[in-house]
C-alpha cells in the first residue's frame, strides 16, 4: 500500500494495521525518516528551521506503486507499506515510513532497504531547507545513486 499525504502518521498504529490478521508473517521490519536539525550547505553546517517537500502529484503515486511492486517481485512479502509526506515540516518531524512483513526477517529487512534506496532516486520529491541563512534546495547525492545501484538500478545520469 502507498500513501502520499500532508498529515503526520502514527508509526505504532501503522505497524499493527498494515499486516494485521496474517499469521504466516514471522517478521516485520520498518524504517522511519525524520527531518534533521542541521544541514551542510556550501561546506558549513546550517541550522534548519523548516523543510518543505514538493512533489509531482500523479507521478509520485505512480513511481511509489512501481517501486513497491518491484519489491514484491523480488521478495516474498506478505504486506508492505510506503508513506511519504509533503508540505512544510520541522526538525524531528516524520517524513517517510516504509514497512515490510514476511515469513522470515531477511526478506523484510532487505525489502525495506530496497524501498528506501529506490524511492530516494526515483520518487519525484524535492526538499527545500529554510535555514538561518536563507532557503536552499537539497542537492541529490551520488551516494544515493550508488545505494540504489547496489540493487541493480542503473545510475540516474540522463
Amino acid at each position, binding site marked *: 500500500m502507498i500513501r502520499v499525504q500532508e498529515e503526520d502518521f502514527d508509526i505504532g498504529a501503522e505497524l499493527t494495521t498494515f499486516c494485521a490478521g496474517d499469521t504466516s508473517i514471522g517478521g516485520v521490519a520498518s524504517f522511519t525518516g525524520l527531518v534533521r536539525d542541521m544541514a551542510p550547505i556550501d561546506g558549513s553546517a546550517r541550522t534548519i528551521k523548516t523543510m518543505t*517537500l514538493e512533489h*509531482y502529484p500523479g507521478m509520485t503515486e505512480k513511481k511509489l506503486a512501481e517501486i513497491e511492486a518491484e519489491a514484491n517481485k523480488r521478495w516474498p512479502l506478505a504486506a508492505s507499506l510506503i508513506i511519504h509526506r509533503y508540505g512544510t515540516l520541522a526538525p524531528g518531524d516524520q517524513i517517510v515510513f516504509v514497512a515490510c512483513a514476511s515469513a522470515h526477517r531477511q526478506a523484510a529487512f532487505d525489502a525495506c532497504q530496497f524501498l528506501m534506496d529506490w524511492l530516494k532516486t526515483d520518487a519525484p520529491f524535492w526538499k527545500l531547507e529554510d535555514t538561518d541563512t536563507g532557503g536552499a534546495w537539497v542537492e541529490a547525492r551520488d551516494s544515493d545513486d550508488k545505494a540504489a545501484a547496489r540493487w541493480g538500478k542503473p545510475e540516474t545520469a540522463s
Partner: protein
Amino acid sequence: MKILYFAWMRQRIGASNEDMDLPDSVNTVDGLVDWLIARGDGYAQAFAKREVIRAAVNQEYVQFDHAVTNGDEIAFFPPVTGG
C-alpha cells in the same frame, strides 16, 4: 501540451505549469528544451545545466532524445531528493 516545472526550475521559470502548442519543428525533449530556452532568460537559467535536468513524458522518466507530441504531459525537474 502541458509542461510542468518543479523545485528550482519552477522558481527560475516563474511558473509551475503552462499549456502551449508545440511548433511543428519540435519533435523531441531536446528540441523542446532548445525552443523553451529561446523564450527567455528564466528558461535559459532553468535549463543552463541541461545534463542534470530530468525529464518525464506522461509521468515516465525519459532520455532527452525521446519523442514529444502535442497531447503529452511533460515535466522538467532537478534530481529528486525525497526520502
